[in-house]
């Protein structure tokens, strides 16, 4: 996997007239994983969206080298299509990369329309979409929501694999998750 790096300097985020966090800095190199902790409403999702370039930070700057993949609460899979077809759309855009459907236990669900999937199944489908993008930087926003213990183990396994191959994983979650290296920051420390 290509060299990648994700650096943020002195980030601050404002939502409405509330300053969620400030002075946040991070520097992740190839193979690094980081958990972002924090109670609800402390700005975990906003941080992810800022790092992804979807939200403009109130202050500070973000530098990225390498493509990014995002997993959030929206699966971005067409509800009416069978799972295999919904994933095939992204596969066509992303080109042929490793297929994670088997690892995530999605093969028996290939013909099931996405809207009939359970919360956990949808989350696993979204994980397959994200992993199938082949991007070196992974941004995961609450990846464990709705997953059973087997699913949680799968996420940890996927992230460990990804980092072992030289990728970066940034996981925002209020739940405990085992990441390679075990690094974590808490947004409470940066609360304004």
């Amino acid at each position: 996997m290509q060299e990648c790096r994700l650096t943020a300097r002195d980030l601050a985020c404002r939502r409405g007239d509330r300053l969620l966090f400030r002075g946040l800095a991070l520097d992740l190199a190839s193979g690094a994983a980081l958990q972002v902790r924090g109670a609800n409403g402390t700005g975990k999702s906003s941080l992810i969206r800022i790092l992804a370039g979807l939200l403009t930070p109130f202050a500070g700057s973000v530098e990225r080298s390498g493509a990014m993949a995002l997993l959030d609460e929206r699966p971005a899979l067409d509800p009416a299509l069978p799972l295999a077809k919904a994933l095939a759309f992204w596969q066509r855009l992303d080109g042929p990369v490793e297929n994670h459907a088997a690892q995530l236990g999605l093969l028996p669900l290939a013909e099931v329309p996405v809207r009939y999937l359970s919360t956990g199944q949808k989350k696993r489908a979204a994980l397959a979409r994200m992993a199938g993008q082949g991007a070196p930087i992974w941004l995961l926003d609450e990846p464990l929501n709705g997953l059973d213990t087997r699913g949680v183990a799968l996420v940890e396994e996927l992230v460990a694999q990804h980092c072992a191959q030289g990728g970066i994983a940034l996981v925002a979650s209020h739940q405990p998750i085992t990441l390679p290296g075990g690094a974590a920051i808490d947004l409470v420390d940066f609360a304004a």
Partner: protein
Amino acid sequence: MSVFLSLLRRDLGLLLGGERRGATLLPILFFLAVAMLYPFAVGPDAPVLARTGGGVLWIAALLAAILPLDRLVEPDLELGLFDQLALRGISEELAMTARMVAHWLSFAPALLLAALPASALVGIDAATLKTVELGLLAGTPGLAALGVLVAALTAGLRGGAALGGLLVIPLAVPLLVFGAGSLATGGEAGLALTAACSLVLVAITPFAAGAAIRSGRG
């Protein structure tokens, strides 16, 4: 280019076969329903019908184009589709261009076909029908562009569908004036001006709709 074709293929598949096919079928049925009701409302007076029928078809086409607005952009915004495209470096402009082309392909050919039975229902002659068909051919790209533009502007707003309808009507007035106006003069000038309006709308829509999607992120 292959990215554009992938997007177009997905959008067309959803509009024609997916759960949004109502966005395709409903406007056509609505168009035919208006053409069917009109003679009941004004009475079976052949000269009156023949003189006004073409204009009624234009109004029906315009109103029919408003129906699918809430299904054009909003569902994909909720899915997070545009965020995922942005992460892959695919611009909102490209996505909106694909959406516009797919929307036109999904309703305009069917509308042009439906205008044939509709012309019989409102009792217009062959020459008028030809002008209506040419006018719709020139005007529907503009209606499709306007639909995508307003759908992108109102996506995510509460009551966006109703607001969208209100926004489309004034913006579509030039298309209606020139398109239906070409019926009165029977000339090509009206058709050319309709096509010109369409071109302007088609040209600005990808940028305006793309900017609307971007500014809606928060």
